[in-house]
C-alpha cells in the first residue's frame, strides 16, 4: 500500500514559495509560463464530466493564473471516475520516449483549493503510465508510480507535498495526475490547482509503509476512509442484472449511507457478483496496485435483506487472479442467508497471505437459490480489522 505522508500548510493568498531560491521543475506556474513542463492531455474515465481551464484568473495562489477543474460527477461514460494525466508530450501513453529524467528531485509540491470547501480529490499520482489497456508493459514506462489521496479541500489555498524520496525518477512521462470519483464527490465540484512543481528537500526521508486498522472498504459513500472500488461486475452481462447504490440513505447501519444492491436475472445468466477492486477494473494485470493488509485477522461487514431469507452464495476477500499481479490469497464464507435486520458477518483471515490485496471484497450469488424475481440486499461497514 502506498500511504504517503503528506504535509500541508495553510497559506495566505499571495505568499508563495519563491521558485528562484530553490531547485524547481515546474509543471504549472502560470498559463504559458516558459518554465512549465508536461501537458494535461491524458483524459481518462468519464472524460465528459470534466471541464478544464488552465488560465483561470478568478483564483490564484501566486502569479496571474491558476487551473480550474470542474467535475460534474455525472458518470458520462459510465465509469464513476475521471482523471487527467499531465504527460511529457501530448497523448503519450508510453509509446514515445519524451519523458524527463528528474533524478535529484524528491518532492512534488502543489497548491489546491475548492470553490466552497469540501470538494474531494480522490487521488494524485506521479508517474504510473506503465501498462496499456491490455495490461502489457508500454515501450517507455514511467520509472515510478506514487499515489496519494484522497484529499478533502477547503475554500482556502493549501500547499501539499508528496514524498518521492527513494523513488526512481529517472524517467517521468506522467508528471502529475489528478483523479476524481463520483461517489466521493457526490455532486458537481470545482477545484483549483496552482504552483505544481518538483523540488528537492534535503530533510525528506524515505517513506515507511504502514497500514492502519480498521482499514475500510466501505464506511459511507463520501468517506475518505474507503478503499477499493465496486467496479468488478460479474459476469459480462451483469449490467443488465444489477443495480448498485453506494449512497443509500435509508436506514444505514451507521453513518450517513449504506450500499443497496438489486439483483434480477434479466440477462438469463443466472448468477452475478461484484468485486471491490483497486484500482477500478483491475483483474490482476496492474503492478504495484495491491494493498498490504498483513496484520488483519478478519474482514467484517454488516448485511441485511429487503425481506429476509435472501441467499448470497459467497462473500469473499481476494481471489482475483486473471493476470501477472493477482491477489496474494483468498478467503470466503457462504452461503449466507440474510436476515431482515442488520447482522454482522466475519471472514476469517488468519493464516492468509494479505501482502497484496487488489480484490478487497466480493459477493456473488445466483438466481436458483433465490426468489426468481430477484433480491434486494444491503451492505455496510465493510472493513479489515486486526
Amino acid at each position, binding site marked *: 500500500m502506498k500511504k504517503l505522508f503528506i504535509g500541508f500548510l495553510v497559506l495566505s493568498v499571495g505568499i508563495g514559495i519563491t521558485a528562484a531560491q530553490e531547485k524547481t521543475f515546474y509543471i504549472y506556474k502560470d498559463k504559458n509560463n516558459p518554465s512549465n513542463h508536461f501537458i494535461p492531455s491524458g483524459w481518462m474515465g468519464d472524460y465528459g464530466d470534466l471541464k478544464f481551464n488552465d488560465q483561470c484568473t478568478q483564483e490564484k495562489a501566486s502569479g496571474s493564473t491558476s487551473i480550474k477543474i470542474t467535475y460534474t460527477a455525472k458518470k458520462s461514460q459510465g465509469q464513476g471516475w475521471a482523471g487527467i494525466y499531465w504527460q511529457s508530450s501530448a497523448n503519450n501513453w508510453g509509446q514515445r520516449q519524451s519523458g524527463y529524467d528528474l533524478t535529484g528531485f524528491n518532492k512534488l509540491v502543489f497548491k489546491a483549493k475548492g470553490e466552497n470547501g469540501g470538494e474531494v480529490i480522490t487521488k494524485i499520482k506521479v508517474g504510473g503510465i506503465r501498462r496499456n489497456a491490455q495490461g502489457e508493459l508500454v515501450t517507455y514506462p514511467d520509472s515510478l508510480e506514487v499515489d496519494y489521496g484522497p484529499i478533502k479541500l477547503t475554500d482556502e489555498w493549501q500547499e501539499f507535498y508528496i514524498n518521492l524520496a527513494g523513488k526512481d525518477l529517472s524517467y517521468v512521462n506522467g508528471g502529475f495526475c489528478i483523479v476524481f470519483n463520483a461517489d466521493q464527490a457526490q455532486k458537481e465540484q470545482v477545484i483549483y490547482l496552482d504552483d505544481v512543481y518538483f523540488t528537492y528537500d534535503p530533510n525528506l526521508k524515505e517513506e515507511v509503509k504502514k497500514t492502519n486498522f480498521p482499514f475500510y472498504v466501505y464506511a459511507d459513500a463520501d468517506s475518505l476512509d474507503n478503499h477499493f472500488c465496486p467496479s468488478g461486475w460479474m*459476469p*459480462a452481462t451483469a449490467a443488465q442484472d444489477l443495480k448498485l447504490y453506494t449512497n443509500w440513505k435509508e436506514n444505514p447501519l451507521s453513518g450517513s449511507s449504506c450500499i443497496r444492491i438489486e439483483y434480477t436475472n434479466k440477462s438469463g445468466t443466472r448468477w452475478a457478483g461484484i468485486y471491490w477492486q483497486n484500482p477500478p477494473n483491475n*483483474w*490482476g*494485470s496492474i503492478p504495484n496496485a495491491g494493498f498490504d493488509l498483513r496484520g488483519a485477522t478478519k474482514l467484517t461487514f454488516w448485511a441485511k435483506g429487503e425481506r429476509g431469507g435472501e*441467499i448470497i*452464495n459467497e462473500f469473499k476477500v481476494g481471489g*482475483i*487472479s*486473471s*493476470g*501477472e499481479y*493477482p491477489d*496474494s*490469497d483468498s478467503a470466503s*464464507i*457462504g*452461503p*449466507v*442467508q440474510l436476515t431482515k435486520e442488520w447482522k454482522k458477518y466475519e471472514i476469517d483471515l*488468519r*493464516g*492468509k*497471505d494479505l501482502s497484496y490485496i487488489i480484490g478487497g471484497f466480493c459477493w456473488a450469488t445466483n438466481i436458483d437459490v433465490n426468489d426468481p424475481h430477484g433480491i434486494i440486499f444491503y451492505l455496510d461497514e465493510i472493513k479489515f480489522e486486526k
Partner: protein
Amino acid sequence: MRKIKKVFKAGSLGVCLIFFSLFSQAKQMTIERNSAGGYTFFVKGRPFLIKGIIYNPTPIGSGYDYDLFSDPTKPWIFDGKLMKEAGINTVRIYSCRGADLRKVKKFIRELYKKYKIYTIIGDWLGLWDRPCPNYADKEFRQYTKKKVLEIVKALKDEEGILMWVLGNENNYTFSGKIAFWTSPEIEEIPDLYERVRKRAQIYYSFVDEIAGEIKKIDPYHPVALGNGEVSMLDVAAKVCKNIDVIAVISYRGKRFGNLFENIRYLFDKPVLVSEFGCDSYDAYKDKEDQDVQAEYIKFQWEDILKNTTFKNEKGTCIGGTLFEWNDEWWKHNEGYTSDWSVHNRQAGWSNGSYYFDIKAKDNLNMNEEWFGIVGLSKEKNEYGINKRAPKKSYYLLKEIFLKN
C-alpha cells in the same frame, strides 16, 4: 498402526533435528517432520520427491468407460519407458474400482519392475456415482468402505504401491457445487454456512474412518486426503486422526501462492499437489500453444520444489502429480461417443489464473482435452497404441526432473 518417534541428533551440524516417523517400516515409506516444520518423504530409507504424473491413457475413440488395466495393448509398457526417460517416478491412478484387481496388480508390478515407477492408487469415494453419493447415508458409507478396503487388501503388498488417496474434489459437494447431498439432520440446521460445515464434518469423518481401517490392513503406506483447494481443511483437521498427507488439487495459474503456508495453518500435514497443470490450447487465439503450457508447468514445478525440504527446511510439500500424461479426446463431450474421436478445441470451463487466454468467448479458456504433456495421433505405433507425440512440456519436465 504402529507409530514410532525417533530422536536423532545431528551433532556435527550442531543442529538438533526431531523426526516423527509416521510409518515404521524402514524399508517402506516414512514421512519425517523436522524441527523447522518441514516434511520429507522417505522411500526405503531415502528421501523421495514425488515427480509424478496422472495416468489415464484413454485411446482416441474410447471414453469414460475405458478400462486401462484390461487393455491388451498395455500402453504403460510404452509410456513407462517415455516416463522413465523423463525422470517421472510416480503415476497417479484416479480409481481402479470395478477393475480386475489381479490386472491392476500386474500393471503396478510391471511399471515398477521395468521402470521403477511407483503407483498412487486413488478412489473417488463415489463422487461421480449416479445417484449422487450421500456421505450421511450409513449403507452408502459401508458399501464404499468395503470396496476401498478390498482394493487395499488386494494391492497393498505390491512393491510399486506408494500411497492411497481418498477422494479428489469431494469437498465441492458440501456447498452443492457438484453432487449435492444432505440429510434431515443437516437440514435442521438453520444457518446455511453451518450446514456446509456439517457436511464437511460428516464427509471427513467418513474419510478418516476408512483411513483408520486401511491402516489396520496396511500400516506401511501413507493415506492421503484428496481435497479441492484448501476449503474446509480446518474442519478436516478437527476430525481426521488417520490422515497422513493432504493431496490437494490446485489450479492457480503459474504459481501456488500461499497454498502451502495456508495448509500448514489449517491442517499441518505433508502436502502432495495431486493435480495441477496447464492445457496446451489457447482458447483465445484458437490454436495450440505448447509454449505457454511449458512455461506454466515450469513455474508450477519450481514453486512445488521451492516448498519441499530439498530446497527449503520448512518445506511441507512432498511432490506433485501433474495432470496429465496424454491428451484425452473424449472429455469435452463425454456423453457423445462420436466425439471421442475428435480432438475438440472448445474450452469447457473458465479459470482466470490462466490469463493468457481468458479473453476467449464467455471466458471459457480451459481446454480439458489438451492437458497432456504427450499428444496422441490416430496412427498406431508398433505396440498398437495411438502414436505418442511428446509436447514441449514433456521435454521441459525431462530437463527439470533429471536435474533434480
